[in-house]
């Protein structure tokens, strides 16, 4: 039979990745009239089947521990299907002496299916790091450039919070926050005594019906995925909006190998592995938006080598893979005897904190630069596996006294987690490992990682603050950390906070940045990278809200450029 040769279909835009960045771009571009194809390396999501919301541990044979007890490493069996620390057949490597962990997602919606829903705006000062303290670099854009897009994102996805006028934590467009739990009432009073700012948190969970999504019903299980879509995920909020336009094609199990450049120096196609069929396919488009998650986006560019771009696409500056940062994380906890006297009541609330401490020491001299915020939680939440490991370790023995002791201490614990800003350093970066490819034959990333003294000092300050708050609240701080060793002051290993970013940064100078202020590649004008790879710095605010604001802004710019025929 003779083969029929046809000109391939050319989409207006091809988006790589379906998470916060890709989902936002899909909504804006399709609603703007463009035909969009999205490639996702993982499978489809079916919340009705995949989400374990309202399931009790005893309804699962493994009680949440997973097969062979192994799920606890990936946050437990109840979590929305979202990825894991290790993906079979898709390794990554670390350089000798570097400790770095990479949490990756392979599913529609990416990590937004399980993220903490903490939705914090960067502050004006966060865009002017170098001008402020001489370290790192300024962003090519300002808070004023991004603020209208924070407004748009918050208005669309729904975020609760309160107007507080805290300079380090700009107010946004908020729904009313939920009332504080008892744990939060105790900590708020303790913070007031210490002059530590403690305010209602800002979370992408709707407390009022919004765009056809019902309000939160306060089961505290956001991390499991929300069947009623009362919290934000790209899969349930962004992608349905794109689908509604009729101009959206989603291809799952599509692992992109390379972006192919035409003779004119513009991106022309992507080559991807159809994982189900195990064959290579191509998709053609007039423009490309990369939102594969920061390090996957860098990996894709570095693997897209050609005669015209021998060091990888959009990498004439050599910065792709550089400036890798994660949040500084340190945690601790205390026991509060007054919580044992609480009458039985529903303490669930939303899935996450109702209050938090934004960075409050911005107006004084500290022994480290930049700042951190504090997240906290505890009390009588649904019991899970591992709940009493610590207690058993301390109490030991067996029998009626052990059983009663567990009941006595249940729900009396409040844990604290600091999230601080790491300053980019030359020893923390990722690159292609020349010796290792994944099961699709695609070269993998190798990570290099080192904290600097600034981060260690910040972790020490976190520990001192946690202890002060616990003691001011009438509790006993029990976390013990070492001042040296591999994790001084309890600082988490690189990547563990899952805020890894910065590896394809924006900037005005094409010699020191890969993208311009609209996340458009300096070298390839029909190529955009709109995930957190584009960040110039990693302030103490969780990155997702800013990813969406930048992706929204870049997508509007792309639309405008497309209309003007500039792509």
């Amino acid at each position, binding site marked *: 039979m003779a083969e029929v040769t046809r000109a391939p279909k050319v989409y207006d835009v091809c988006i790589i990745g379906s998470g916060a960045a890709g989902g936002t771009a899909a909504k804006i571009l399709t609603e703007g009239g463009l035909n969009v194809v999205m490639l996702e390396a993982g499978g489809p999501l079916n919340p009705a089947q995949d989400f374990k919301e309202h*399931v009790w541990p005893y309804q699962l044979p493994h009680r949440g521990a997973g097969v062979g007890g192994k799920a606890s490493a990936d946050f437990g069996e109840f979590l929305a299907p979202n990825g894991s620390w290790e993906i079979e057949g898709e390794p990554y490597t670390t350089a000798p002496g570097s400790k770095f962990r990479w949490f990756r997602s392979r599913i529609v919606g990416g990590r937004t299916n399980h993220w903490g829903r903490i939705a914090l705006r960067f502050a004006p000062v966060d865009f002017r790091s170098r001008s402020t303290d001489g370290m790192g670099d300024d962003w090519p854009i300002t808070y004023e450039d991004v603020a209208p897009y924070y407004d748009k994102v918050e208005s669309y996805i729904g975020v609760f919070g309160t107007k507080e006028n805290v300079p380090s934590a700009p107010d946004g467009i908020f729904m009313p926050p939920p009332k504080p739990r008892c744990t939060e009432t105790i900590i708020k009073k303790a913070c007031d005594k210490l002059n530590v700012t403690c305010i209602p948190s800002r979370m992408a969970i709707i407390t009022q019906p919004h765009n056809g999504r019902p309000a939160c*019903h306060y089961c505290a299980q956001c991390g499991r995925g929300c069947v009623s879509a009362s919290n934000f995920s790209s899969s349930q909020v962004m992608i349905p909006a794109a689908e509604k336009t009729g101009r959206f094609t989603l291809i799952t199990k599509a692992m992109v190998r390379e972006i192919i450049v035409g003779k004119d120096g513009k991106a022309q196609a992507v080559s991807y592995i159809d994982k189900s069929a195990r064959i290579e396919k191509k998709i053609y488009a007039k423009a490309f938006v990369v939102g594969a998650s920061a390090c996957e986006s860098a990996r894709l560019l570095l693997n897209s080598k050609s005669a015209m771009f021998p060091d990888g696409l959009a990498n004439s500056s050599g910065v792709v893979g550089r400036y890798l940062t994660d949040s500084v994380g340190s945690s601790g906890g205390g026991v509060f005897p007054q919580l044992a006297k609480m009458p039985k009541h529903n303490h669930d609330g939303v899935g996450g904190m109702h209050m938090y401490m934004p960075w409050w020491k911005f107006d004084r001299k500290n022994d480290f630069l930049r700042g951190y915020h504090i997240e906290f939680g505890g009390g009588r939440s649904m*019991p899970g596996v591992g*709940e009493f490991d610590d207690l058993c370790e301390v109490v*030991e023995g067996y029998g009626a006294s052990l*059983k009663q002791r567990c009941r006595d201490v*249940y729900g009396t614990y409040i844990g604290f987690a600091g999230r601080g800003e790491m300053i980019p350093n030359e020893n923390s970066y990722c690159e292609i490992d020349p010796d290792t490819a994944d099961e699709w034959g695609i070269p993998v990333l190798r990570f290099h990682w080192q904290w600097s003294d600034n981060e260690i000092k910040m972790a020490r300050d976190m520990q001192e603050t946690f202890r002060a708050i616990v003691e001011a609240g009438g509790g006993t701080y029990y976390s013990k950390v070492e001042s040296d060793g591999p994790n001084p002051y309890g600082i988490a290993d690189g990547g563990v906070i899952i805020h890894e970013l910065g590896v394809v940064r924006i900037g005005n100078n094409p010699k020191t940045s890969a993208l311009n202020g609209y996340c458009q590649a300096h070298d390839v004008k029909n190529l955009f990278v709109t995930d957190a790879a584009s960040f110039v710095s990693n302030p103490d605010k969780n990155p997702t809200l800013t990813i969406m604001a930048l992706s929204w802004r870049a997508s509007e710019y792309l639309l405008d450029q497309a209309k003007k025929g500039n792509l």
Partner: protein
Amino acid sequence: MSSNLSRRDILKTLAYGAAATSVLRVIPAQAAEYAHHMIAAEKAAAPAKAYTAKFFSPHDYKTLQTLCQTIIPADADSGGAIEAGAPEFIDLLTSENPDYQRILGGGLLWLDSACSDRYDKVYLDCSPEQQKEILDQIAYKKNAIANPALNPAVEFFSFLRNMTADGFFTSEIGIKYLGYVGSAFLKEFPGCPPVPEI
């Protein structure tokens, strides 16, 4: 549920989301609530039949059950680890994990042989006093510090204690015993009730 949505409507909504787009469209809150109850009811309806251990021999499984119940016994407020299904949970996970097999399988063998040496009987045939005597040896780390030969047995018991606590406190009776109230559908979150000292 006080609504005119039928089960069929709900299933249609759910199936539509899955089949049409692979990504669920937003479903009404009452549909979500109904679906949750439905899943829970179907899961709860699974018949309770006699459990056949997947990993442990019948003898070892009986020893395991006895140990679990000794770690978390029944009392006036609730049943114990056996009523909570802890031994089934431990057996299932052990059947899937070689490390668990080494620690728990090896630990049970050690226990019977230690009892045989000491009392000329396997653990299950020992008197309550003898059982207490041997468990008191392996239930505390300080004994292994005094006598390092006890290390594996102390590790075994510590592991079993954690798993028994997991099995009990994630069970329906264990959660009720703790007094957890939640996983509900609330229109408003009431916040902290007035409590002294809070």
